């Protein structure tokens, strides 16, 4: 059976919200989680942000008017949730002097065995938040700059510059390391 498109799922949500939401969750749980994970790095934080994102989707999908793509709307919620989580993370980090940075590096045990992926993950972690996100949307999600600009609520020009810097830094990191 052919999976329903986003538009069909949104229409279905009006009549059968439970069924449509389950389908949306199945389809987008992984992309949303990895998006959050790239911003937050820590699994626990990404997990919280993903859950909060879908709770918001459930509560607000009936108000989604379709002015933008569904994925843009969904990723924007996830992006905002991640930023909220990031603020909490930074606050906790500042409050706790003995913040264990090794916790972040311990995640490297979860990395793919292939060295390139491990290095890529490290390189991504070292990027500033905006560059990391642009790289994520462009490289992993294959989104157009226009759509990324809508998600991050910023200009396309700025995003392209950020992407350029991100690629350059990753290249350097991979070559040097």
């Amino acid at each position, binding site marked *: 059976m052919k999976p329903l498109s986003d538009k069909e799922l949104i229409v279905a949500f009006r009549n059968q919200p439970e069924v449509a939401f389950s389908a949306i969750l199945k389809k987008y749980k992984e992309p949303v989680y990895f998006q959050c994970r790239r911003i937050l790095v820590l699994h626990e934080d990404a997990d919280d942000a993903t859950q909060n994102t879908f*709770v918001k989707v459930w509560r607000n999908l009936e108000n989604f008017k379709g002015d933008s793509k569904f994925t843009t709307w969904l990723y924007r919620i996830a992006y905002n949730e991640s930023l909220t989580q990031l603020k909490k993370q930074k606050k906790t980090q500042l409050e706790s002097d003995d913040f264990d940075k090794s916790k972040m590096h311990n995640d490297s045990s979860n990395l793919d065995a292939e060295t390139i992926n491990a290095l890529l993950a490290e390189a991504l972690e070292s990027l500033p938040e905006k560059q990391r996100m642009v790289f994520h949307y462009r490289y*992993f999600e294959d989104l157009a700059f226009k759509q990324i600009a809508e998600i991050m609520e910023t200009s396309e020009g700025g995003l392209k510059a950020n992407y350029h810097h991100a690629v350059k830094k990753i290249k350097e990191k991979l070559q040097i390391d």
Partner: protein
Amino acid sequence: MKPGYKEPYKVGEKYFDNLEEIIIAKTIKNKPKSNNRVMWFSLAAAASVIMCIWFAVSLNKSEDNKPMEQTTVIVKIDDKSTIESSVLVESISSDDLTEVLAEAETIKVEEAVLIEKPVDITDQEMELLMEEVGLVYMDLDEDLLGEIEI
């Protein structure tokens, strides 16, 4: 995600299944949807109305049961003199007050009767008149006065 790319972050094998269950428990099973919102609004509105009615009823009750507040009761005896009794008694009931006022009115009428009578009446006539209006008349026993000099 672009086909061919590998996700650098790895998670447990059943992580996404568990995540799905958690989210479903927080959303579909919890059902915090608009229908529920309407229901909660209705319940809150109904509760407010009930509270208002209860408050109004209890306010009326407390007004009825409240002991009479300190008030100044002015009982006019005649035009020249007034008795101002700043509170006869704090807990005087409205029945008592009516009685007092009625009594005062009677006295006023009797006073008026007395005033209407000519001043130059005899002692006997005065005595009779006083008995008539119910005022106590007492004969002074001169023996009782003894040696008191007036």
